[in-house]
């Protein structure tokens, strides 16, 4: 069975490679460069803003940005259907292996921005700060009432992301320590829907990128029950003092087109990093 699978994969990858070669030769003959970026929903607003500003400056390069989740972007990179995969979690070793064996090129990781993953509650909530162990108990379903953590006597309503989300995986690894989410967590198709749900729900709690925290309260985070409560901002995220800081990544292959290299260099430069700040994330530490 394993052998058959590999055989199938090989045929499949050969076909995609032929297709990729055809597209590549097409791309090199036309003067206008085309870049596709796909992946993390956390990074969609960032990617779109980058593309918008960059295309104004460099009209010859056309950039297309779509979301779908980090998993979706990485799958597209493995299948050779995107130039850049945006991911809000590091690629797993086996994913890198799959990508390199299918596309026969080395995968390149570039940290393009930093994010303080934010835990949101409704504006009316009296809770100001939570520790990582408390968050773990809340999201695994062991704490189910706000009064156990200094709030009113009301049930906690959990909002999270679908399992193709990099944020889902990051939160599961870093906050839940790879434990399972409570079965009562409602899964939302994007960070914007999580925010929308928590804005409407006075007992709600959810998580997502820092840039989305509009109309609700972003909690301060304690690394453990005795640690000081730290607000997520540029200084605490860059220094790593904030308990939920994480990298936002581009994944591409080595030996990409000049347009791609130029775009990545611009993203990491002062103009690109200014966009990061404008959108609400944090620039990569120099």
């Amino acid at each position, binding site marked *: *069975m*394993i052998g058959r*699978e590999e055989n*199938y*994969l090989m045929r499949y990858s050969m076909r995609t490679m032929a297709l990729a070669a055809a597209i590549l030769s097409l791309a090199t003959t036309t003067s206008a460069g085309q870049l596709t970026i796909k992946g993390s929903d956390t990074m969609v607003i960032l990617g779109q803003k980058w593309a918008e500003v960059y295309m104004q400056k460099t009209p010859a390069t056309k950039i297309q940005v779509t979301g*779908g*989740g980090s*998993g*979706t972007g990485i*799958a597209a990179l493995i299948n050779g259907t995107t130039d850049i995969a945006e991911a809000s979690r590091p690629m797993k070793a086996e994913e890198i292996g*799959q990508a390199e064996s299918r596309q026969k090129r080395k995968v390149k990781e570039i940290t393009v921005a930093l994010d303080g993953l934010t835990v949101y509650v409704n504006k009316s909530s009296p809770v100001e700060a939570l520790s990582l162990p408390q968050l773990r108990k809340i999201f*695994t*379903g*062991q704490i189910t009432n706000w009064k156990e953590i200094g709030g009113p006597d009301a*049930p906690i*309503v*959990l909002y999270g992301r*679908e*399992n*193709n989300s990099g944020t*889902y*995986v990051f939160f*599961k690894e870093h906050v839940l320590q*790879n434990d*399972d*989410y409570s*079965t*009562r*967590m*409602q*899964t*939302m*198709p994007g960070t914007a829907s999580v925010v929308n*749900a928590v804005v*409407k*729900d006075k*007992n709600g709690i959810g998580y997502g990128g820092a840039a989305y925290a509009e109309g609700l309260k972003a909690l301060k985070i304690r690394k453990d029950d005795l640690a000081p409560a730290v607000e997520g901002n540029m200084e605490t995220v860059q220094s790593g003092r904030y308990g939920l800081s994480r990298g936002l990544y581009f994944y591409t292959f080595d030996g990409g087109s000049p347009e791609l290299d130029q775009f990545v260099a611009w993203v990491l430069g002062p103009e690109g990093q200014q966009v990061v700040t404008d959108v609400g994330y944090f620039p990569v530490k120099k």
Partner: protein
Amino acid sequence: MAGVLPEAARIARATGAARSERVIARSRLSRLAERIVEGGVFLSAWIAILVIFLIFVFIGREALPLLWDTPQPGLEAEAVTLDRLVGPTYYSDRPPAYVWQPVSTVPKYNLVPLVVGTLKATVVAVLFAAPLAILAAIFSSEFAPRWLREIIKPTIELLAGLPSVVLGFFALMVLASWLQDLLGLTFRLNALNAGIALGLAVIPIIFTVSEDALTAVPNSYREASYALGANQWETASRIVVPAAVPGMFAGVVLGFGRAVGETMVVLMASGNAAITSWNFVEPVRTLSATIAAELGEVVFGSPHYRVLFLIGILLFAFTFVVNLSGELYVRRLKERLEGRTAG
């Protein structure tokens, strides 16, 4: 048929009329055209059947390797066994639970919460839609004046053309808030909310089939009832409706089948939490919504991928059985009623 042509040609030759020759030629041509059209129709019918069959084969081919696949070394934790599809997960620090969490260090593919969730949403849909649709059908066929009937019937049937994404959006943004305020619910998105929205999608199906069943009741029944001195209400409630009950039942069954397979509405309005409970104001995750949410990003050929196709088979088998029994019931009912009129 084959013998007719040479025969006609012989007669035509015998009369020796040039006009007849032309007629023969034309009829020969039209027969050829008829053959081609006939063959084309025949072929397209078979292609349609073949396509459905191939879809079934494809789904089976993707799901069934689950049965005989041995896990790759190092990935034993991901192996899917029957026990893991239906049995609870045990934890050291909290009570055991039926868990659907396919992205995890130890993936959990428990189908129980998904089946329970599907049933909850569907039951609400049918309980909401069936009384409304059936009463509307009775009113439309027995009591409404002709002009009103001409308005009611197409309007309700138009509801079937409403895209389910629109229904889902309505349930997500408007209906959920109404229900929460009205009933003081903890969860905005829940089985009740999704079920009512699903019910809106199901009403036209139940209405149409019930209406047909009522109008199929022979007029002689009604006339006989009036002749015995019954009024309109007595005729409807004691004669016509009982005669049409099997047809209405079939409509409900067909509506149930539609509700089970419907995806967009539940994906948007149900909250998508895989909870195993019979509380109808808690969020639910249905089989169809799970496929829609997760199939986009699974690794090809992985256990997760295969389990999603297994869910597809479950859905397919379920709706197939439900729809088939509904159809058979309607057919038998029609035969019975028509048989009686003839006799």
